[in-house]
């Protein structure tokens, strides 16, 4: 951690830890986020992503370690940090009974956006997320995707240095997710803002300039998506055989590394998938029922680093709960 690197980092984290009683949610994290990049925090639910974000945006005290955001220490000057960051939470934090416009006005006022500029900034923020025609609608009537867009507009209204997004597309359908990403990837270019976001969607992490993979409260690897994928080394071959347990040993000899059993398949990395497949079929005594190879994905990186996959099913069930919660909330706020 050189001083030079720290001075131009927008977010700098050293040895950050957070314990909730006996539970160690975050166990010693080091990070540097550079100005203007989209930095992704990738990991399964419960890995410590939200806890880390909450410490960085001064909602939680760290148990140990140090963190600065926009050059300001999160412990010493939380109000200073808050004035320099924007936030989009996992769950919507809009006032459903106010209109889109009023939600933004509240935000502009609280963040002390100069009165002379308020109207213009609100108008351009609404325009950026294509909500101009809904400015006067009560937020209760908005879809999940519209609420998310409004929150993104709100997050940058006070021209923060860093925009934190905690699972910005959770619970949204794939089409809406792509839509949201369209806005997000424009932000650094248009507003010079740095984006720090968490996700457990592998495909979304691909949009990031750099990614940190986090599991069990620790960072497993940091790099660009390509750098991380090159860690896997070559192609990923997924094999199904009549008897995976028996085949594993032979495959290990052929591939030169132990295959990982995952969901009824065996996965192994080889330098050249095209050359490996014929050898596999020819030289394995157990019958090979299916075989496929492909370029490595972030999924494979995660699997390699942690020995297991981020299960979409796991994400799916929490998403479903979340959506139930939101449906209930929609009713609730109507009162």
């Amino acid at each position, binding site marked *: 951690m050189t001083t030079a690197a720290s001075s131009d980092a927008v977010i700098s984290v050293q040895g950050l830890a957070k314990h909730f009683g006996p539970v160690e949610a975050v166990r010693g994290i080091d990070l540097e986020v550079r100005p203007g990049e989209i930095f992704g925090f990738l990991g399964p639910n419960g890995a410590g992503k939200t806890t880390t974000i909450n410490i960085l*945006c*001064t909602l939680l005290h760290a148990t140990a370690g140090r963190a600065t955001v*926009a050059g300001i220490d999160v412990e010493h000057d939380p109000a200073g940090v808050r*004035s320099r960051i924007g936030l989009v*939470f996992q769950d*919507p934090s809009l*006032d459903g009974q106010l209109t889109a416009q009023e939600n933004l006005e*509240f935000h502009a006022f609280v963040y*002390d956006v100069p009165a002379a500029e308020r109207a213009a900034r609100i108008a351009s923020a609404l325009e950026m997320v294509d909500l101009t025609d809904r400015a006067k609608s009560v937020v209760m009537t908005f879809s999940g995707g519209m609420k998310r867009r409004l929150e993104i507009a709100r997050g940058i209204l006070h*021209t923060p240095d860093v925009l934190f997004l905690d699972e910005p597309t959770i619970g949204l359908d794939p089409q809406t997710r792509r839509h949201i990403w369209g806005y997000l990837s424009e932000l650094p270019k248009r507003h010079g803002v740095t984006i720090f976001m968490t996700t457990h969607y592998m495909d979304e992490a691909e949009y990031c300039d750099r990614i940190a993979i986090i599991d069990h409260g620790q960072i497993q690897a940091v790099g660009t998506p390509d750098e991380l994928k090159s860690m896997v080394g070559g192609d990923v071959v997924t094999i199904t055989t009549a008897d995976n347990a028996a085949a594993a040993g032979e495959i290990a000899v052929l591939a030169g590394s132990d295959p990982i059993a995952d969901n009824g398949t065996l996965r192994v990395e080889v330098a050249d998938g095209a050359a490996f497949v014929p050898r596999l079929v020819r030289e394995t005594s157990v019958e090979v029922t299916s075989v496929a190879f492909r370029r490595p994905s972030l999924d494979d990186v995660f699997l390699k680093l942690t020995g297991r996959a981020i299960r979409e099913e796991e994400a799916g069930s929490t998403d479903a709960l979340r959506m139930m919660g939101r449906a209930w909330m929609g009713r609730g706020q109507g009162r």
Partner: protein
Amino acid sequence: MSTPNGVMAGAPAVAARRRPSSTLWPTLRAIYIIWYRDVLRFWRDRTRLLATFAQPLLYLIIFGTGLSSALSGSAFGGAGAPAGFSYTQFIFPGIIGMSVLFSSIFAAMSIVWDREFGFLKEVLVAPIDRSAVAIGKALGGATQAMFQGLILLLLAPVVGVKLTLMSVLTVVPLVFVLAFALSAMGVAIASRMRSMQGFQVVMNFLMMPIFFLSGALFPLGGLPGWMTFLTRIDPAAYGMDPIRRVLLDGAGLPPAVLDRMGLTIGGTILPIIGEAGILLAFGVVVLGIAVRNFRVRD
């Protein structure tokens, strides 16, 4: 105060001169906007306005008339009460107080609602002092509750309580002090609550006892010792009594009758200003607790 640092949109923020992190002015602005949001929501929610008007009306017309008839033989108010004085007139100020009590606590409980449904986070991560959240919410609740209490004055002619300009002008600040103290108490409670589940508990173990012991429904004189004690530690009692005295005095009830119904401590009748002072002091103390609770970060 204009913003001295101007706007630095687009400029690298590295050297941006920040205004001091804690000054009075931003806190006042934040109190104002938090108060404003509550008032805006209140104004927009016409059904709630209507609903809270219905309950006091039931108490006054059905409960009041029923008990008036039942008590008619027993000369409510005792000897010396004017012939036309009924139980309904007695509880009219009490029902105003009840409306203030319930509205205050409900308004304060919206904090728990905001916490559960996210909006509170928007406020808590804002670069404002957390005291603004507690104070803004307490004032927002007080404004709503004051409005809901005072609107019942429209029923005064129906119940037969004569209003004078003086009695109305005096009762407005008294209702505000009661509304403020109870809202502040509600905010202090809500600041510790993490879910709406606790709300029922607050209702049954706090709001209803405060209501029943406040003197809204019966005079607080001549009660058994244990109950006398409980009524004297009920903050709402210090708001009910002055409101009743001012309204019924204006309506022409003799002072001797009023004194007999009034709140006493050790046999002494407290002056209105003293009661309001006690209530205000209580409000400030619980608001202090609320501010402290909001400043705690895990």
